[in-house]
Every structure is written in structure tokens, then in C-alpha cells.
């Protein structure tokens, strides 16, 4: 079988505070025969500071990365970080719909971005390249009750991303069900976690993330599943503030969806980086995978 | 030299597009003054010889617009207009008239904004294409020489 080769943009989070996200994406890709090729000489995507300060800068930073990826002959670009993904897709949309700006940005970066790249977030990546291979490779059933948390950037703005539905998204739930998990219906799927205030105003993070963690725990979820490094760091690292807001200690762990897939594939926990989490990830008594799980494919389109 | 201002002739039906253009007026939506509207009872009435005539008389661009499919005041006139357009387009191509100079569209009586958009986009497109001169060049050439 020919190895699938995809472009890959890790971004700063995945090199730093969310190393385990990077590790788990790489681990499952390798396991399933997919080669992720990092963009040579990639730079910062600009999130979240640039687009508050300077429009040209906020478009030029991602545009340079996109142009480099195009130059490297890549057709698809996997962008696991939700903030990077948002900046990349927004940039592509703006440049393709505003010729003047497109020319201007081309001038700034000294390269020409043609706009032929398909930008995929981690869920789109899983849907397109991973999910079909799961049946033959799953070793353990992820037999846990989970709450999938999408956060703000993954599905918004729908007009640009054209991915999943803004309210009550379903794509992560479908993947988790496929792994054998019981993915619950809950209230805070797309609520803000307070990422922007992660450093400057941790009390707000405590309140916003606190509600998220509490609702998931209240409904009996055994793990929160995320696909964004900011979501993860807030829900995981800010647990003291969260517990303070809720007035009780909650032990529900937070997993990247790629880590969950990795566990089901039987990849070593340390390779997936589970030991790096602040909230201990216990989850171990998985059942061996017995039979293929059929998941009803929900109509995942925006109604409007 | 001043900028090229194209002459655009719009052939429209009375019930949808003419009324839609009236609505553009009542809504005070501005659009290019390069368009002249010719009113017909129905797009079905529009003899495409008139389009040829318009080009021969010096039009740079043409808009043909009527009711949306199924909304024709006379049931089916717009379908015949569309069918004729499919044929006429090929003839234009054959005759060397750039088919981008003719815009075929549906604008209902409720689409005042759409009318302005179509006029403006056609105006821009024709500006890019430049004046339509091939017919006049042909007629002024000394063929006998």
C-alpha cells in the first residue's frame, strides 16, 4: 500500500505546552501508515494577538505558511491546533474573496499563495484518513462515557469553515462512538473556556471552564474529549481555579481525541503523552475490541 | 483620455425584472448609469435579432432578464427565452461576438438589490472587455479594395 503523505503544521502550542497533542497525532498517523510532512521553515500563525492589532499582519503570517506548503507541493494541510486552523482558514477565505488584499499580502510575504491547499483540522483529518482504517486496527474498545468538547474555534464561523454545525456539533461524537464510547448529550459543547484569559485573568477561566467541567462530570462523563490545545490547557491545567469555582474537587480527565484513538489502537500511554497531564488519566480497564461498531451518520449540516 | 463608459442595453420583461428595477429605484439603491432599459411584455417576446441589432448599433454589452423559472406571468415565456439563448449563444460565438458581453439572468419583482448587482457587475465586466468594435471595423473596411 502506498503511504499517504500529508502536509502538517504543528504550530507553537504543539511544540510547547501541548507536546502530547503533537505526539499523539504523530503516533496514530504513523500507526496507520500516514506520513505527516511539516512545512519547511514554518512561522507563527499569529493567533491570537495579530488579528486584534493589524489585519495585514494577521493575514500575512498564515499566508506565508500556506505559500510555503504550496511550494513544497503539498495538497492537504493538517492543522491540529484549533486557533491555527481558524487563522489559516480565515486567511484563505479572505484572500480568495478579496483580490486587492490577496495581491497586497503576496507582496508582503514575497511569495504567491494560489489558494489550492485544503486545510484540515484534526477531526476532518480523522474523518477523511483515519476512520476507515479504525475497524481493522482497533485493539481496545473505549468503553467509557465521554463528553466531547468542541470549544469556540473548531466549528465557527460556519460561513468560512463550512464544517459541522455551529450549535450541537456532532463530528467528534461520531468518532468517539466509533471507538465504542458512550458519547453524551450535554450543554457546554461549544461554550467558551476562557482561553484568551488563560494567563491574565485566571478567575474568569475558573468560572467559564468550571461550568464546562462541572456539567460533564454531573452528567456522569468519565472523560472530556477535546481537539484544541487551549481548551486542553484550560480544562486540565487550570483545575485548581475550576475546583475553587465549583467548590468541589473534580477528577474527570481531559484527553485529546487523538489520545483516545491512540488508546483504542493500543499505543503505549507514554508515547501518547498521557503522563504529561495535570489531571491523572486513570482510564485503563478497556475491553478488547470484539466487533465492528456501526455509527449512525448524523446529518451534520448547518440548517441555515 | 477619459475612462471607457460602456453602453449597456437591458432587455427586460414587464412583470418581474422591470418591476424589480422599479424596486431598486424605490429602495434608492445606486447603480451604474451606463444601462438603458427596454421594456417587453415577456422575455418570450424578445427576438434575438434585436440583440444583434443592438450590437450593430453600437452596444457594448447586453442584459436579458426576466422572471425566474416557473414564475413567468405568461407561464412559459421565460423558458422559450432561455432555450433561444442557448442557441443564440452558439451563434454569437460563431459570429465572433464575445458571449461575455451578454448576461442572461432572472430578476424577480422582489429583487431590487440583485438588479443593481447585475448592472454593476456587467458594467465592470464590459469595462474590462473594452468597447465592442468588431462589427464597425467590418463595416468600415474597404472590402472591395
Amino acid at each position, binding site marked *: 500500500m502506498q503511504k499517504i503523505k500529508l502536509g502538517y503544521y504543528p504550530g507553537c502550542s504543539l511544540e510547547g505546552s501541548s507536546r502530547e497533542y503533537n505526539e499523539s497525532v504523530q503516533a496514530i498517523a504513523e500507526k496507520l501508515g500516514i506520513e505527516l510532512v511539516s512545512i519547511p521553515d514554518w512561522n507563527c500563525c499569529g493567533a491570537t494577538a495579530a488579528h486584534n492589532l493589524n489585519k495585514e499582519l494577521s493575514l500575512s503570517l498564515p499566508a506565508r505558511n500556506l505559500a510555503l506548503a504550496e511550494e513544497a507541493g503539498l495538497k492537504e494541510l493538517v492543522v491540529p491546533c484549533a486557533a491555527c486552523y481558524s487563522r489559516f482558514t480565515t486567511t484563505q477565505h479572505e484572500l480568495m474573496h478579496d483580490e486587492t488584499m490577496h495581491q497586497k499580502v503576496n507582496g508582503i510575504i514575497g511569495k504567491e499563495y494560489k489558494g489550492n491547499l485544503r486545510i484540515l483540522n484534526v477531526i476532518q483529518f480523522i474523518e477523511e484518513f483515519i476512520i476507515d482504517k479504525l475497524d481493522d486496527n482497533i485493539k481496545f474498545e473505549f468503553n467509557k462515557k465521554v463528553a466531547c468538547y468542541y470549544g469556540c474555534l473548531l466549528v465557527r464561523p460556519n460561513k468560512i469553515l463550512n464544517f459541522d454545525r455551529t450549535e450541537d456539533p456532532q463530528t467528534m461524537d461520531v468518532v468517539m462512538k466509533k471507538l465504542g464510547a458512550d458519547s453524551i448529550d*450535554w*450543554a457546554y459543547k461549544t461554550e467558551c473556556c476562557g482561553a484568551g484569559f488563560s494567563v491574565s485573568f485566571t478567575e474568569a477561566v475558573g468560572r467559564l471552564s468550571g461550568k464546562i467541567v462541572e456539567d460533564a462530570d454531573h452528567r456522569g462523563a468519565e472523560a472530556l474529549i477535546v481537539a484544541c490545545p487551549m481548551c486542553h490547557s484550560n480544562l486540565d491545567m487550570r483545575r485548581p481555579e475550576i475546583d475553587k469555582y465549583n467548590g468541589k474537587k473534580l477528577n474527570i480527565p481531559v484527553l485529546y481525541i487523538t489520545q483516545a484513538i491512540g488508546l483504542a489502537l493500543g499505543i503505549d500511554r507514554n508515547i501518547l503523552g498521557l503522563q504529561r497531564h495535570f489531571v491523572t488519566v486513570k482510564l485503563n480497564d478497556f475491553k478488547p475490541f470484539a466487533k465492528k461498531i456501526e455509527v449512525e451518520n448524523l446529518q451534520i449540516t448547518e440548517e441555515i | 483620455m477619459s475612462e471607457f463608459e460602456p453602453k449597456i442595453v437591458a432587455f427586460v420583461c414587464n*412583470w418581474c425584472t422591470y418591476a424589480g428595477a*422599479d424596486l431598486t429605484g424605490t429602495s434608492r439603491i*445606486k447603480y451604474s448609469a451606463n444601462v438603458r432599459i*427596454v421594456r417587453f411584455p415577456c422575455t418570450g417576446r424578445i427576438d434575438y435579432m434585436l440583440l444583434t*441589432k443592438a450590437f450593430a*448599433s453600437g452596444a457594448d454589452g447586453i442584459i436579458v432578464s426576466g422572471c425566474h423559472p416557473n414564475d413567468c406571468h*405568461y407561464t412559459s415565456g421565460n423558458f422559450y427565452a432561455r432555450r433561444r439563448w442557448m442557441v443564440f449563444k452558439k451563434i454569437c460565438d460563431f459570429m465572433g461576438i464575445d458571449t461575455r458581453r451578454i448576461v442572461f439572468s432572472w430578476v424577480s419583482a422582489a429583487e431590487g438589490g440583485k438588479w443593481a448587482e447585475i448592472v454593476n457587475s456587467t458594467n465592470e465586466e464590459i469595462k474590462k472587455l473594452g468597447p465592442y468594435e468588431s462589427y464597425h471595423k467590418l463595416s468600415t473596411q474597404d472590402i472591395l479594395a
Partner: protein
Amino acid sequence: MARIGVFICHCGENISATVDCPKVSEVAAKFPGVVYSIDYKYMCSDPGQSMVVNAIKEHKLTGVVVSACSPRMHEPTFRRACAEAGLNPYLCEMANIREHCSWVHEKGDKTDQKAIDVVRMMVEKVKRNNALMSIKVPVTKTALVIGGGVAGIQAALDIANAGHKVIMVERDPSIGGHMSQLSETFPTLDCSQCILTPRMVEVAQNPNIKLYTYAEVESVEGFVGNFTVKIRKKAKSVDETVCNGCGLCTTKCPNKKIPNEFELGMGKRPAIYVPFPQAVPNIPVIDKINCTYYKTGKCKICEKVCQAKAIRFDQEDEIIEVAVGAIAICTGFDVKKTDFFPEYGYGKYKDIIDGLQFERMASASGPTSGEMRRPSDGQTPKKIVFVACAGSRDPAKGIEYCSKICCMYTAKHAMLYKHKVHDGTAYVFYMDIRAAGKNYDEFTRRGIEEDGAKYIRGRVSKIYERDGKLIVVGADTLMNAETVEIEADMVVLATAGVANPGAEELAQKLHVSYDQHKFFSEAHPKLKPVETNTAGIYLAGACQAPKDIPESVAAASGVAGKISCLFANNELTREPLIAFVDRTAPPEYSSCTGCFLCQPVCPYNAIEREDVKDRNGNLIKQLAYINPGLCQGCGTCVAVCKSKSIDIDGYTNSQMYYEVDALLNS
């Protein structure tokens, strides 16, 4: 020689602010054939019209161009003025320099040039206009009323009481419409059924009204005064002439678990049913999709118990053809269902209902006999939240307009709830309280001040369920935009009023226009609010836009008045702008070659074959002949005619060619 007069209107400042009217007049005076040209402040005013009349007489004009607003606005006005002066009215044309020029372009040379060009076009056209005589057609003095809601009922009764015949077509098994579903009506809180059912019975008993229920309009042909309408009478599987309405069949039907449409799914009904006890006519229909006999071929219990022997399983749809002179569209509206709202759970929470469902719940004849019981477990809701503007005034939802009735009915709902659950709390989230109308604002104030409904100004961002409660998350914009969370037992969404699902299809059958929301369009928003653009077809009620009961009734009476005026004439005059075959040469030498390509394209079957015979009666050739009684003047035949033998008055080939030529060869 043509002697054309040109009259340029300033329309106050509507035209003159952008177009240099005196200059246009000056230039127009030099056009070949123009003998008189003048500009004036208001051409449509009395003195303005007199100017036209006097100029025609004084200068012996043979044609008139009024350069003013759209011909759709004032063409009849100026044609009348011409007729007054003794000039054939069809020798008058209008150049549209307002809607198509002054209102849409900036002041400047280009705009002036456009106005001049448009006038030149019309001058060249009017030179070639023919004097025409209007056509007289008879009037069929029967009206068709489509829809049997309160608007249809009012229109039908008023027309019938004026002494004319009425045919009413209703899609459902009973007339009554949405009004029959309502519990009580604002601002008086009188019971909806109590005031409506006597009117429904009146319709059934009026000898001038022929009622077809469970029927739909299949097709419409013809024109004002002379429509031919085909009505599809859907098979009721019950012989209406025999059934005595005892209702035994409905009690014996074994399949009683079908969601009741009249109760909006909150109650159940059998497969043979009357929608509600006061239905008119009180004759059941069999729902073929759910009937056990139609599904399995076995059962027929209704037939066995029917003492009148009225059940007809072999009944088929019937097409009835009727001739009518006028049509009133009264097809009403619909409301968005709760599944339209992703932020409120896509309709997955049973205790979130829409306003119409609440009406049924509050109605004494409804599924809960008027008691407040939430759908999920039948408990009395102690905390209830009403969300106004659910979908309305929300461009993100594609519904920019105000649904108009929700403010009032939400206030009514809150009051009804408080009257039934004294210790309960009613919250209302709202954007603005729009209570314009007689005694309307007083009514909403009463709801707040006397009945204690708690109004919160702000929108609800989401609703979710937790531990059996619905958590309503909203903002209170009068309290510093604080987030408000209410743990409610039930939520009522005042969902947007939208066009009936079949509206677009009906509009296409009737050839009337509709707006982007599929509501039918009136001919003029102010001066022709109940007419459509198609003569003889009128609009009443919420099929035009969301309307409350008094407005719908007023419009319906307006329509009845219009139709009665129409029926006061024995004959109508029709515009003579129709197609004709060239017969200027001796008849046998008409350029028509008899190819009859024109025949299949004519939507009105107006083109016939005419035999041309010699003196001895031998056939020389066949020509096309256009029946002037049937031709509606679309002109499609003109464009397909290979030998250019067909032309159409008002838009003749010569007129159109010269028009195009004039506008380009300045």
C-alpha cells in the same frame, strides 16, 4: 408627419434633484418629430394633466411622451388624460426617469444623458404606436375563495351577501384555519371558537356559497372576469351526501394513535376523523396513509358500524372545473417549528413548544382540556419561559422581518398561564414590545402589572436540559447585559410566522408574484394592498405577511369590496396589447407560411388555423389566426415567427427596433 409632445416631470424634487429637467426638455424639443416639449413640477397633478390635454389640442399632437415615473405607476393616468383630449390613449408612452434614473444614479452629466436617451427612445417608439381600441370581455359573476380561514370566511360571506356566487376551496377537512386552533384572542380574551364557529356555520348554510373542503386548486387559466379553475377534490372515502355526521366511525376506528395535526401532534386521532368537534362540514375523512384497510386490505370496521352506509373505500380524487370572474387568495400562514432552532435543542426537548401548541394546551377543547400540563410528564409547569422573536427579526435565520403577532400573543399566553397556574411564574424574554393597535398596549401592560408576568429585555442564547429542568440562558440588557439563567419547567417559543409551505406552488399556478419569503406580493404596498399584479386576483390575510385577526378580516372585507365592484359591471375592458398575424396584403398573400411554430409556444392556445379559400371554395393555404379573446399578449409567438408575420400591438417589431436604434445612435 408625427407631431410629438414631450412632458418632463420634476416629481417635486424626486427627479429634478438629480436630473436637469429643463435641459432634458430643451434637448428633447430638437428631436425629429417633436413639436412641443416642456418640463413641470408635478405632471400627474391636475394642472400637469391639463397641460397635456391643452397641448394635445393646441399643437394637434399625434403622440405623447410623459417622462416621469414608472409606467407601472402612472401610465393609466396619462392615457386617460390623452383620451380626454381626444387622442387615442395608446398613443401615449412613458419614459421612466425616476425609478430607473433619478433614484438610482448620482447627479451629473451621465445621468442627464441617460434621461435624454430614454426620452429619445420613447419618442421614436411612440411615433410608431398604433391607435388601439380596448377590448370588451364579459364577467363571470362568481368568485373563488382559496382558503377557509378567518380571512377566507369573511371574504366569502361578504361577497355572498352582496348577492354573488362564491366557491370556497379549503385544503383541510374543515374550514376554520388557524383561528379555530386558538384558545382565546387578544386584546379582549374572548374565546376564539365562540366567535368563529357561528361564522363557519354561516358559510356552510349560505345558499350563495359552494364549499369544497379537502380540496385544492389544481390549475388556473384565463384572465380577469373569465378564469377557468380546476379543483381537485381529494377522496374523503366518505360519501358527503349520505353521511349524517354521527361520528360513530371515529369512535370505533381501531387505529387511534395517529398524531393529531389540529392539536399539532400533542393529541391523537383515529384514521377516520373530523379534525375537531365543531368542524364544518361535520363529515369525517379517512386518512389513507394510516388507515388499516388501505395499508393491509383488512379492517373496514367503519363501514360495518356506519348506519348511513356512507363509507366509500373506492372513492377517487375528483377534478371539478369551474368558471369564476375573480379569485381571492386567503391561504394564511404557518409557524416555524421548534426543530428550526439549533440553539434551543433542534426540537429534541419535549417541553419546548411553539406558540400554536401552547394555544392548544390553553384551549378548553385541547388535548389537556385547557390545563397547563407539560408534554414530557404531564406535570403542571411552575416556571414557564416565553421567548419572543424566536427566529423573527434575525437575519442569521433568514427571517429579517417582524412576525408582528408574537408580542401580543406572548402577552396573552403569559396572562392565560397566570390565570390557570396562580402560584406559577411566567418569564418573557423580548427584544421590544410591539403592541401598536387599539387597546393593545393596555393589554400588555395588564399582563405585566396585574398578572405579574416578568418581562426580561434580552435574547435567549441557548436552552438545555439538566436534571429534568430546562435551563434557559439569556441576557438582561436592562441590567447591564447580565447573564440570566432560569430553571424552567416549560418553554414556549414565539416562533416566526412564515409563508404556507404550498404558497410558492400556488403563486406559480396563479401567476402572481411573491417575495423572497414566499409571501404573496401586493400590487402596491400602500395604495393597492389587497390586489395582486394580476388583474382579478386579490389577497387577504396572513398569506401576504403575518397579520392578526382584525387585520385579516379588514383585508378580507376589502377584497370582497373590490370583487363586488368588479362584479358590478357586465363587461370589462381589456388592454388591447395583443398579437396579430399580418394581413395588410390581400388575405391570401399574408406573409404567414403556415408553419405553425407559433402554435405550441402559445400558453393560451390562442393560435388557430385559418383556411384561405379561393372564390370556388378551394383551399389555397392555411394561415395562423390569433384569437383576440384568448391572447394575453406575451409575444412569445412574435419571437418564434420565422417569416416575421406576427406582431404584437404595443411592442411591435418596428417600435422595438427603432427604440433600440434611437438609444444607441445619439
